[in-house]
Every structure is written in structure tokens, then in C-alpha cells.
């Protein structure tokens, strides 16, 4: 795993690049709500592009951001992340079919879940909703690994954005 300093620098560079892109595309005098979503979107894309193709959550973040962008922005993101963004629908259908098959097999054996395990199951369901791309994961172990990586990247994002914001408070 990279050191957090190196990660912060990488995130910062990518975020600045995407913010610059936004300002060249949109020009001046944009309304504040649009500015906020642009800042957040570019920060999310920068965070995900530090990890692209190695983690499922980064792919999910980029594909949701993809839908919010227009074509010029999409071109730039593609070159920045260095990878083609595939449409998610084919992948989803394949995974749905596979999980459906697995469901049918396990129905034959009724596994008794204790109260504690039911609680763990409900918590895992909540975690699936929080981690981007989590709903498509069948394996618990990979969900937890993704969550750990996502938390580390979120921390980097928050640290860089905080120090950036603190530069303006004087």
C-alpha cells in the first residue's frame, strides 16, 4: 500500500487537473450548486482514478460519475484514468444470472442462522449499500477488503480537501 503522503499528492494532482478541466469547460459565473457538485464529482473521480481497475468500488464510482458528465468531460476522464469505462449493464446481468444460480443451489440446504448471525447479515447489507459497487458483490470477504480500501481513500480525500479549504481561512 502506498504511504498516505504519496496518495495525498496523487489525489491532489488529479483533483486539480479535473477542476481545471471543469473551469475551462464551463467558464465563469456558474451557480453555486453546480460548483459544489463539480467539486465533489471531480474529487470523487480523482479518488477513484488513483485505484482504477484494481478495486471494484473505484470502477463503480467512475461509472456513476460517467453518467453525470457530458462528452467533452468524459473524454478527459478517460485519458486521466487511463482506462476505458465499460457500460455496467452487461456485467450486472451476468452477475445477476450467476447469483440466481447460486441461490437455487443453496435453497436445498436450509442453514439455521442464529440471532447473532442475522444481525451480522443485516449489517453486511447496510455496508453493501454504502460501499460503491457493493450491491453487486456476492463474496463477503471481498466486500470487506473493498470497504477497507475505500475507507483509506476516503480519508485521503478528506485530508486533502480539508487542507485545501484551510488555505482559504485566514
Amino acid at each position: 500500500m502506498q504511504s498516505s503522503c504519496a496518495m495525498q499528492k496523487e489525489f491532489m494532482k488529479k483533483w486539480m487537473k479535473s477542476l481545471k478541466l471543469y473551469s475551462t469547460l464551463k467558464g465563469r459565473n456558474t451557480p453555486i450548486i453546480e460548483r459544489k457538485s463539480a467539486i465533489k464529482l471531480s474529487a470523487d473521480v480523482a479518488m477513484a482514478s488513483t485505484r482504477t481497475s484494481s478495486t471494484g468500488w473505484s470502477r463503480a464510482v467512475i461509472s456513476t460519475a460517467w453518467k453525470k458528465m457530458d462528452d467533452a468531460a468524459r473524454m478527459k476522464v478517460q485519458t486521466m484514468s487511463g482506462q476505458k469505462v465499460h457500460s455496467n449493464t452487461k456485467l450486472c446481468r451476468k452477475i445477476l444470472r450467476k447469483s440466481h444460480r447460486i441461490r437455487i443451489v443453496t435453497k436445498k440446504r436450509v442453514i439455521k442462522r442464529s440471532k447473532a448471525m442475522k444481525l451480522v447479515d443485516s449489517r453486511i447489507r447496510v455496508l453493501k449499500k454504502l460501499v460503491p459497487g457493493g450491491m453487486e458483490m456476492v463474496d463477503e470477504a471481498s466486500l470487506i477488503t473493498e470497504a477497507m480500501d475505500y475507507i483509506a481513500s476516503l480519508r485521503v480525500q478528506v485530508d486533502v480537501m480539508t487542507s485545501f479549504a484551510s488555505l482559504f481561512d485566514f
Partner: protein
Amino acid sequence: MSTRRASSRQAASASRVNEQQITDLLARLQQILPEIHSRCRRPSDKVSASRVLQETCSYIRSLQREVGDLSDRLSCLLTTNDVESDEAAVIRSLLMRD
């Protein structure tokens, strides 16, 4: 008959291996979470799996909320033309800090 029992024993041991893997991952996750980590001073097995998962979910939620609040603040502070001039200053300051 015996093959069914053997296969069920195999499946049970496979699920046991999986559970061990999951407990290891949860232990690592516990190390990352700030609240549990600072409160318990690293006991080996005291925290339950559901508690770790609950703390994870609330931690992720609070981090995401912080990102939203920060981008709110930044959208007030930045105008689109400011970004280009500030970029160099910020990167320089971050690099100098390290």
C-alpha cells in the same frame, strides 16, 4: 451415502476456512476504525463482528458527509477562475509540508 457425507464434510471445512478468512479481515478492519481502536487499546477478541461492521458503516457515512460539507465550503470559497491560479500555490504548500 458416504460420498454425500464426505462432500458435506468438505463443504463444512471450506466454510470454516472462509470464516477464518473473514475473522482475519474483520480484525484488520478493527485496526483501521478510530473509535474502536482508541477505546479498547487493542484487545484481541473482545469486539463482536456485528459491532465492527456497525462502526465501519457509521465511519463511512461520516466520511462521506465530511466530503459533502467540504465541497460545500469550497464551492463558496472558490470561483471558477480562482482554481487555476490557486493550483500552483496549493501544490507547492503541500509539497513543502512534507
